[in-house]
């Protein structure tokens, strides 16, 4: 029974066939109405027997954390799974974190998820729930909390990982979207391989600029890659931009450029003023534009034009000063704790550009 506007016990997989694009293998397939669902058991995936579960509330609860094995019609990927609720809402949004090794993508994503978990999107009219409870809990326990609560520096993302790191159901007055976050190793992003395949289905990109590479502002734990000069390009940015757009002059994937680790720049105008701002709970297109303009001019001033490419090549693109950590790590820890700054601003801009945050003001974000 389909009840599109009445889900007292949470979403259920659609009973009518719906075509879905898998964000991992990029194949499209008809979502099976009565497919076999699985549950995680450590590293294993075990089938869930729902035949005897007739109670609607119980069934919905089981399905909240259940997974569907992607049929991968082209048979070119290893076995992978999608959340059972993936096809139950509006077209899923895939957000990719793009940046070289040591750019801070993983710390940024961990700080974002922690801030969302702390309710910092609520003032914007956004509520978030996990798509895959087990995966979300695992992300919180292994990534977000060790970092934000215990001040531990995260290990680099493993190469070869092709799946999303976490996924949330984001609801606004405009609807509900599954939003999947991909955090692929920087080394993999610089190559044209399977691991970056999700990019072709991405609905939003967060390009992460490392000031060590772009500005030459290094530390002992994050040295500049080139001795005697600064590498003036970013393989991850170049490869990702090269994979998108299909040759069109402008890429129609909303993007946000994040000047990460801005704590290193926190005493330099105008970074100092931007980093002190806190979210207002309202989308302000003019303010986002002013910050974008400042960040563009700042990167231009430091001859970091390679990191401005997404702005030139993506039709909708904003720029942001962000610090996922608020401080430098010393010996693998943050002695004074972690103090993330403005980590949700890029995500809010992206959500405005894709329409999750709606309204006339949000519609102007990334435009004039």
């Amino acid at each position, binding site marked *: 029974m389909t009840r599109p506007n009445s889900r007292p016990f949470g979403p259920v997989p659609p009973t009518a066939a719906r075509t879905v694009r898998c964000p991992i293998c990029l194949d499209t397939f008809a979502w099976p109405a009565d497919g076999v669902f699985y549950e995680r058991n450590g590293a294993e995936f075990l089938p869930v027997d729902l035949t005897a579960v007739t109670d609607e509330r119980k069934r919905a609860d089981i399905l909240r954390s259940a997974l569907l094995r992607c049929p991968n019609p082209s048979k070119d990927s290893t076995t992978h799974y999608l959340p059972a609720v993936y096809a139950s809402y509006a077209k899923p949004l895939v957000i990719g974190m793009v940046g070289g090794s040591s750019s801070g993508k993983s710390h940024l994503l961990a700080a974002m998820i922690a801030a969302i978990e702390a309710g910092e999107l609520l003032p914007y009219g956004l509520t978030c729930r996990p798509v895959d409870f087990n995966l979300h809990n695992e992300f919180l326990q292994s990534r977000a909390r060790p970092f934000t609560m215990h001040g531990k520096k995260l290990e680099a993302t493993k190469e070869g990982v092709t799946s999303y790191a976490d996924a949330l159901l984001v609801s606004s007055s405009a609807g509900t979207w599954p939003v999947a976050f991909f955090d692929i190793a920087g080394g993999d992003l610089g190559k044209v391989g399977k691991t970056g395949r999700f990019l072709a289905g991405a609905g939003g990109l967060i390009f992460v600029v490392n000031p060590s590479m772009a500005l030459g502002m290094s530390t002992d734990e994050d040295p500049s890659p080139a001795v005697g000069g600064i590498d003036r390009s970013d393989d991850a940015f170049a490869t990702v931009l090269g994979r998108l757009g299909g040759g069109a002059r402008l890429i129609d994937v909303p993007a946000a450029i994040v000047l990460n680790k801005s704590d290193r720049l926190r005493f330099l105008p*105008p970074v100092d003023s931007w980093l002190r701002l806190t979210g207002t709970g309202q989308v302000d297109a003019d303010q986002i534009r*002013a910050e974008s303009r400042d960040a563009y001019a700042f990167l231009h001033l430091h001859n970091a034009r390679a990191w401005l490419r997404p702005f030139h090549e993506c039709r909708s693109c904003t720029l942001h000063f962000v610090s996922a950590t608020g401080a430098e790590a010393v010996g693998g820890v943050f002695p004074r704790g972690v103090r993330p700054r403005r980590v949700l601003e890029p995500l809010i801009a992206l959500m405005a550009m894709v329409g999750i945050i709606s309204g006339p*003001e949000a519609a102007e974000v990334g*435009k004039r």
Partner: protein
Amino acid sequence: MSENAEQKLGYRDQHGRHRTLTVRHGTAPTPTGSGILARSLTSDDGVTVVKKWLPADVVSEQAWLCDLLENEARAGMRLAGRFPVDYPAEVTHLIGYDLDGEEPFVLLAPARGKPLAAAHQLLVDEQLRFQVSLLKGLLILAEAGTVHGNLSPTTVRWDGVAVQIGDFFHSAAVGDARPLRSLRSSPMGSAAGVRQPTTSTVTTGDDVWAVGLLILHQATGSTDHADLANRGPALRALLEDVFTEPAHRRPTAAVLLRRLGTAPQLPARDEHMARTIAEGQRMFDRVLAEKWPTSNRPAPPMPSMPPSATPMPSRPPRRPAADRPTGRPLPPEPTKPASASSGGLVTPARIVLFLIVALLALIVVVLVLP
């Protein structure tokens, strides 16, 4: 650190770049207030710096004190950015900082002179030199977009030639949201905007009150500004409107210097940097316009940048979120050319037209009637 133990200090310099300084000789730590300690350190090649830091146990118990060192570093960076060459003697010189370790610290060039609180009473012929130098210091702060926030006999030094303003622990940038609870109640340290916060953001006028008190105190030994009317005419003229509310109505440093018949020249700004930034702004605007040629919303006017260490183009909103109006200002109505057909306004053209019509009607009436 024992007095001669070698110590390597890793820090960021005025450009935000990582540096290391090896120091050996050090003086005993002395408290500077608010839990912050200071000591002089000298390297093997004879470079002496002053390190101000918070001990780890203080940081763990009173983490908010780190904000004081953050303010010191921020002000120093703004000043160093505005005066990359010919750094003025009237303000302390930041060498670097590391505020992320267990014992956050700033490094400063050694201070000159003595705090006013410990200096001798200024001689009459010193008074004018002192006033000019102090006001020049105020001008320098304004140029760097910095407000000291605690100018007092302990934070202002005098060496007989020039003042030196230091201890920027309570400083802020012009345009910052004004802290809700701020500063001290020291006899001199009542930078007015704090006492009566009639503006929601920090302005250059905030320091003017405290500068006026310092001048008044050095000239008369009193800080009773209410008694200014009974002082000599020169002092009255100099300090006119200095103790006025709100802060932005007080005279600027440049005005006060003109009252003393002087206008110190400050080093020129880095024009190359300003040009490059302006070039970046233009590129941003052009690319955006090319990507969205049909967007019908006009570009928002960018507020002009107040003086700052690095003249960047636009600023974040100066008011805190809570102070901002909830509604957005409506875009300006497109201007319409005045015409006879447009309704509403009585214009000279309309009056002339009305008179012509009335005259023609009168002629018709005269001709038609028998």
